[in-house]
C-alpha cells in the first residue's frame, strides 16, 4: 500500500509538471511563422517618440553619448549583459543596433532579441541586417520594427538609418531617399548615417557619395570586429562595431569640441583611432 501511494504521488507530480510545462509552451505551426511576440516598445516609431519626449524633458545638451551595438544574432544572453551595462551609463541618451538581430530569420530569434531590447532604458533604434532578411525575416521586421530606412533628429544632429543589404534587397541603398534626408546638413551639428554593412569593397564610391551629401560619420556592423577607417581621398570616417558574441560595443561621445568613438566591453573602453585606406575611386 505504501509503495502504491508513492507511485501515485510520483505520477501525480509528473502530470502536474507536465501540464504546467505545456501551458508555458506556444502552439506553433512551423518555425517560419511571422507573428513574433515583441512589444511596441521596440518599434522604430515608438522609440522616435520616446527620444523626442526625452529631448523635450532634458532640453539642450551639448554633451551626450550614443551606444552602438551590433550582430546580437544567437547570443541574446551576451546582448542582455551589454544592455544591462549600457543602462548604467548615465550619459548614453540612445542606442543604435546595427543589424543582424537574427541569424536564420526564424521568429524565435527575434523574440529573444526583443526580450532584451525591451529592457533598454534608453530609446533603441535597430537597422536591418542581411541575416534579418532571411526566410520571412522581412515580414517580421516590418511588423515588429517598421521601416528599413528612417531618420530622426536629436540635439540638432540627424541620424539616418539605411538598408544596404544588397543580396536580400534590390536597389539599396536608396540614394534618392538618402539625398533627400541629408538635405539641410549645413544647419545641423552633425549628419550621421548608420547601416548594417559598411560600404561594400566593390562599391566604395558610396563613401564619396555620402560625403558629398554632407554626411559626417557612418556607423556599421556586420564585420564582427572593431574597425574605424576612412578612404584617403574621401575623409568620411566609417566606424564598424564588433559583434555581441565578442562582447564588444561602441560609445559615440558628442561634445562641443567634436565627437569621439570608443571600442568597449563591459569592463573597459579604448579610444578608436581612424585609419586611412588607400583606394582609387
Amino acid at each position: 500500500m505504501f509503495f502504491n501511494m508513492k507511485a501515485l504521488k510520483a505520477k501525480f507530480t509528473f502530470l502536474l509538471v507536465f501540464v504546467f510545462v505545456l501551458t508555458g509552451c506556444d502552439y506553433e505551426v512551423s518555425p517560419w511563422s511571422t507573428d513574433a511576440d515583441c512589444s511596441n516598445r521596440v518599434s522604430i516609431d515608438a522609440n522616435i517618440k520616446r527620444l523626442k519626449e526625452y529631448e523635450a524633458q532634458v532640453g539642450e545638451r551639448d554633451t551626450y553619448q550614443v551606444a552602438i551595438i551590433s550582430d546580437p544574432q544567437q547570443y541574446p544572453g551576451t546582448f542582455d549583459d551589454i544592455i544591462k551595462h549600457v543602462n548604467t551609463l548615465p550619459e548614453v541618451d540612445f542606442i543604435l543596433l546595427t543589424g543582424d538581430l537574427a541569424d536564420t530569420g526564424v521568429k524565435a530569434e527575434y523574440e529573444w532579441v526583443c526580450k532584451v531590447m525591451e529592457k533598454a532604458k534608453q530609446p533603441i533604434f535597430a537597422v536591418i541586417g542581411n541575416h534579418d532578411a532571411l526566410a520571412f525575416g522581412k515580414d517580421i521586421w516590418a511588423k515588429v520594427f517598421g521601416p528599413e530606412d528612417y531618420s530622426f533628429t536629436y540635439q540638432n544632429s540627424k541620424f539616418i538609418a539605411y538598408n544596404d543589404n544588397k543580396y536580400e534587397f534590390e536597389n539599396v541603398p536608396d540614394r534618392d531617399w538618402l539625398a533627400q534626408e541629408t538635405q539641410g546638413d549645413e544647419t545641423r551639428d552633425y549628419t550621421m548615417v548608420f547601416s548594417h554593412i559598411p560600404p561594400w569593397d566593390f562599391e566604395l564610391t558610396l563613401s564619396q557619395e555620402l560625403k558629398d551629401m554632407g554626411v559626417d560619420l557612418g556607423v556599421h556592423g556586420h564585420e564582427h570586429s572593431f574597425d574605424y577607417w576612412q578612404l584617403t581621398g574621401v575623409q568620411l570616417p566609417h566606424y564598424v562595431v564588433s559583434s555581441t558574441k565578442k562582447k564588444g560595443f561602441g560609445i559615440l561621445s558628442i561634445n562641443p569640441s567634436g565627437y569621439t568613438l570608443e571600442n568597449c566591453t563591459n569592463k573597459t573602453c579604448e579610444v578608436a583611432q581612424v585609419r586611412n585606406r588607400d583606394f582609387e575611386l
Partner: protein
Amino acid sequence: MSFRRAVVFIVSLFSAVGAWADDEDSGYLDVQSGSLMGLVHASYGAVFAERHNVMVGVGYVPKLSYHREMMLYSLRYRYDHSASWDIAGMAFKPFSVGTGLLIGDHSDLFLQLPDKYPEGYYTPTAFRIVFNYQASLQVTPQLNAYFDMSILDVGLIGYVREPEFFNDNYDYLGLEGIANWGFGARYVF
C-alpha cells in the same frame, strides 16, 4: 528542383521504412498538429526493435495572417521508453523522445544556396532540426493519442550556450522561451 529531390527522397523512404519494419503489423499512421510540424502533418511510421520508430511525413500550413502557405516534409526518429502507467484503464506512456529533419517548401526558403550568394555565405534556410518529447495515451489497442513538445535546433543551441538568459527571462527553467506544443494521434494498421 531541390524540393522535388527532397520529396522524392521522402517518398522513397516511405517504402524503405515499411520494408525495414519489425513485421507487417508494426506500421502506423500518425497525424499531428502544431509543435512546428504544420497545422496538420501526416506521417507513416514503423517500429524497429520494439521501441525505435522512424516516420516520414508531409505537413501543410494554409495561408494565415502570420504564415505563408507552405508544405512541410519530415523525416523523424523517436524512442519510446517502456514505462507505462495505468490511468482509467488506459496505458499512459510518459517518456518518448525523438528528433527529426523538417523541410519547409517555399520559394523564399532555400536548401541549396542561390547563385546570388558567395559559396558558404549562409546555411540553408529551408531545413531545420527539431527535437521533441512526447507523452501518449493508449486509447484503444489501435489508437494512441499524444501531446508533443518540440524544441528547434536554434533554441537548443541557444539554451545550451546561454542557459542563464533563458532561465532569467522565461519560466519553467527557461523552456518557455524555446519549447512549443502540439498534439496528435497514431493509428496502428
